[in-house]
């Protein structure tokens, strides 16, 4: 019978790793904040947005977490669209932004607007992350591969490969009506987004 011989150093590393994982599991079991990776305070923005109000919004075609294709053009003439880019799964502000929108559906309905959540994470990560947010009423799409291609089209891909925390409000003609490339460290105020959506009705 073959045996795998390991030295004392790998044993220590394995033990410490196991303890760390158990620690996360215990903390996470009691409070999901325990599963959140804190990257610390980051440079507020780190890209040059190329899309401005009045521009035609670049189309995209990405898969949602059920494997369905979601494109911007499918909503042309039917729905206004809010694109909510968040930088990364399992990070502090991002993990609460969409749960907030999840209880604010009435404002999207009132303004005939569809919300699309988008990050550069891959689908399995997004699946596990959004599962703990409850049942989201809006699609979440992965801009993982080619990595951050849609974020790049909108000019909001940061140097480290994540996107900015950004909101684009796009009307039924596909024209950008509101842009908020937000400080990555802070939550955009809900009323600012709602105000921008309500302006679409004017």
């Amino acid at each position, binding site marked *: 019978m073959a045996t795998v011989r390991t030295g004392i150093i790998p044993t220590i590393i394995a033990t*410490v790793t196991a303890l760390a994982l158990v620690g996360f599991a215990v*903390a996470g079991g*009691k*409070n*999901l904040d325990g599963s959140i990776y804190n990257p610390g305070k980051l440079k507020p923005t780190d890209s040059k947005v190329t899309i401005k109000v009045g521009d035609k919004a670049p189309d995209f075609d990405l898969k949602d977490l059920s494997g369905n294709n979601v494109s911007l053009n499918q909503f042309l003439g039917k729905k206004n669209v809010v694109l909510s880019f968040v930088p990364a799964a399992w990070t502090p502000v991002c993990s609460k932004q969409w749960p*907030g929108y999840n209880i604010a559906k009435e404002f999207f309905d009132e303004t005939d607007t569809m919300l699309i959540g988008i990050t550069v994470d891959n689908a399995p990560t997004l699946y596990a992350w959004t599962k703990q947010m*409850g049942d989201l009423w809006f699609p979440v799409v992965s801009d993982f591969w080619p990595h951050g291609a849609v974020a790049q089209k909108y000019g909001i891909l940061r140097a480290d490969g994540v996107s900015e925390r950004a909101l684009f409000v796009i009307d039924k003609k596909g024209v950008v009506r509101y842009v908020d490339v937000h400080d990555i460290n802070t939550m955009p105020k809900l*009323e600012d987004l709602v105000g921008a959506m309500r302006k679409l009705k004017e």
Partner: protein
Amino acid sequence: MKRALVLLGILTVLAPVWQESVKGEEQFRVNEAKLGQMQLPAPESAREKKYLGISADKQFTLSEIKAQGLIIEIFSMYCPICQAEAEKVNKLYGLIEKDPLLKGKVKVLGVGTGNTPFEVDVFRKKFGTQFPLFPDEGFVMQETSKDLIRTPTFLTVKIGKGNKPVVAGVHIGKIGNLKDFLKTVATSIR
């Protein structure tokens, strides 16, 4: 056998360190003096003013609330656990209001950390919250502790001599069994 003993030794040495680090992540130590001075915006609703026993029109401090004890839920409109627990917290308020030994003596309020008045209003309407909820856009609650706020956090506060708040209990995360939670609160306030 030797390897197993080494492993056991490492576990023995590191276990207290690990326990401390987990405990460290989960604690919220409050500066009671700062808590007592913390300014909250006065509620517009006459019903909520009457409930809290305050007359201020602009801002008030916790020390002004007429009660023997407070349950303060630190929440956020954006927090999925706070949303999931909202119905249970509403029930907690209901149980207190129905209990002749607690009604009028223990008051419940929520502080929406980082939330604007608009955001708190969305939460209130969504979950039909009957007890007062206050916005804390400037993260004033965070200034009462060096530990990072995790939402939801429930503070049980006893109103001591000179109306000074004394933190009698801190609970982070889901409430768990409601009756057990209320029993713990009632005991710690007495």
